[in-house]
């Protein structure tokens, strides 16, 4: 059974169709990459999946539950985590605090417990803190927990945003250009991290522009152009697909 099923997904903004009749699925444990020229609707797709946009039509099913039209926090609670193209972290807080927020949706804390500092609350807070530290060392930021998030390097900030998404304990992680703005040496580090996340059992859906990376690590690829799916399949098939070549490089290069 597929982890995520998208059927006939369409999103129109006034007269503009951003995404049109999109249908694909993601199997548990796989790494699916979404590629396509700029403006093809990739980030819009992520926004639709995570509830930031309401689909004009179509359905989204996750773990056999229909999550079409759910609010973002509900989608996250169902088990889909996400990072943003523009690195989104709480720049003014410390690294640890950032992850704590990510973990807090699982925290069983209440107002009275917090104010009276009951043993139960303190235990819960300690547990959450421990979990947060584990996640930080998993992504390689274990030694930076007290640094102010805004003072980290671009690459470290990307890791932080990934760790925040991981804190929500997702079954499916949507990564929107995780290597954007990162230099060449650092990319392989991030690729390793992505591999590590996969091994721990989380399925991944990746938006990326770096073709070599995409070809190497993906199980399957979906190609979008002007909001429509123009190809789907294993990396080799997609690379030799005429439609795809035409979309990226223009008519001249198509076979």
């Amino acid at each position: 059974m597929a982890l995520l099923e998208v059927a006939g997904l369409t999103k129109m903004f006034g007269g503009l169709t951003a995404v049109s009749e999109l249908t694909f699925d993601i199997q548990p444990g796989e790494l699916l990459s979404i590629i396509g020229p700029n403006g093809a609707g990739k980030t819009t797709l992520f926004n639709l999946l995570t509830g930031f946009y309401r689909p004009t039509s179509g359905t989204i099913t996750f773990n056999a539950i229909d999550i079409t039209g759910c609010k973002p926090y509900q989608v996250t609670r169902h088990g889909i985590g996400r990072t943003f193209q523009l690195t989104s972290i709480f720049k003014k807080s410390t690294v640890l605090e950032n992850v704590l927020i990510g973990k807090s949706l699982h925290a069983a804390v209440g107002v009275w417990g917090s104010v009276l500092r009951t043993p139960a609350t303190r235990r819960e807070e300690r547990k959450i803190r421990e979990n947060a530290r584990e996640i930080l060392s998993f992504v390689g930021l274990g030694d930076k927990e007290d640094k102010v998030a805004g003072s980290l390097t671009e690459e470290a900030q990307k890791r932080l945003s990934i760790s925040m998404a991981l804190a929500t304990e997702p079954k499916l992680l949507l990564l929107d250009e995780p290597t954007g703005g990162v230099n060449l040496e650092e990319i392989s580090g991030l690729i390793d991290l992505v591999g590590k996340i996969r091994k721990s059992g989380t399925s991944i859906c990746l938006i990326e522009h770096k073709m070599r990376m995409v070809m190497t690590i993906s199980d399957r690829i979906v190609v979008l152009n002007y909001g429509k799916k123009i190809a789907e399949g294993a990396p080799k098939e997609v690379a030799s697909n005429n439609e795809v070549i035409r979309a990226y490089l223009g008519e001249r290069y198509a076979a």
Partner: protein
Amino acid sequence: MVLGILNVPNFAQGHLYMVAAYLGFYMVMSYGMNYWLALVLATVALGVFGLVIYGLVFHRMRNAPEVNLFVAAMALLMVLEGIALYFFGASTKWFLIPFTRRVITFIGLALPVQRLIIIVGTLVVMVLLELFIKRTAMGAALEATAQHREGAMLCGIKVTRISAMAFIIGTGLAGIAGMLIGPAVLLEPTMGMGPLLVAFSAIIFGGLGSVGGAVLGAFILGLVESLASGYVSAKYSLIFVFGIMILMLLFRPKGLFGREVWRP
């Protein structure tokens, strides 16, 4: 009906300013002056005032978090109210001009002239505004800046100038509104509050991001207020207007014609 003018669309970066604050305080200007002349002068004066405020306050704060701008606007409100209290006193004043008492009889209906002026004035201003936004280059620049500041900058639009322009237009409109309404109501330092609330209720009711909707909302809500004043009680009419806005918020937060808000 009266409140149609006060709905100043929230342009460029949502700089909020307390329109009504200005309204109240420039009414008394035309003591002894010809009404139409005073109208023009008030509008110009307010526009200039807007420029000054923009330069001194909002331009400096253009990189500050949004909340700070609201606080600044609020501070402005406090200052203006304080000044008005000081110069004009807390008692109400009456703005008398030749038209106030005159009434035209038209097919058997007694129409107070001032109200007619207000209605006509509103329509004229709305049409002009619409033309300005849709047909002129500056209008387009304004819309562009409102939608995406950085994008506009990249296109070579002088964002600072445009923001200032938006502000000036806004305050100028407030001036017109104030002069039109002044003769019809009692003047007191907090007179701007009511219209401001109705204006925002209208914007919410008609839909955030939709100017046409806001105008429609203003008309409907103005009607509601008048009816409530007439049938229930003038004191509580504002509550009805507010109540409708709350209902709208509960059941259809986007309003009647609201556009989907872009969330990054």
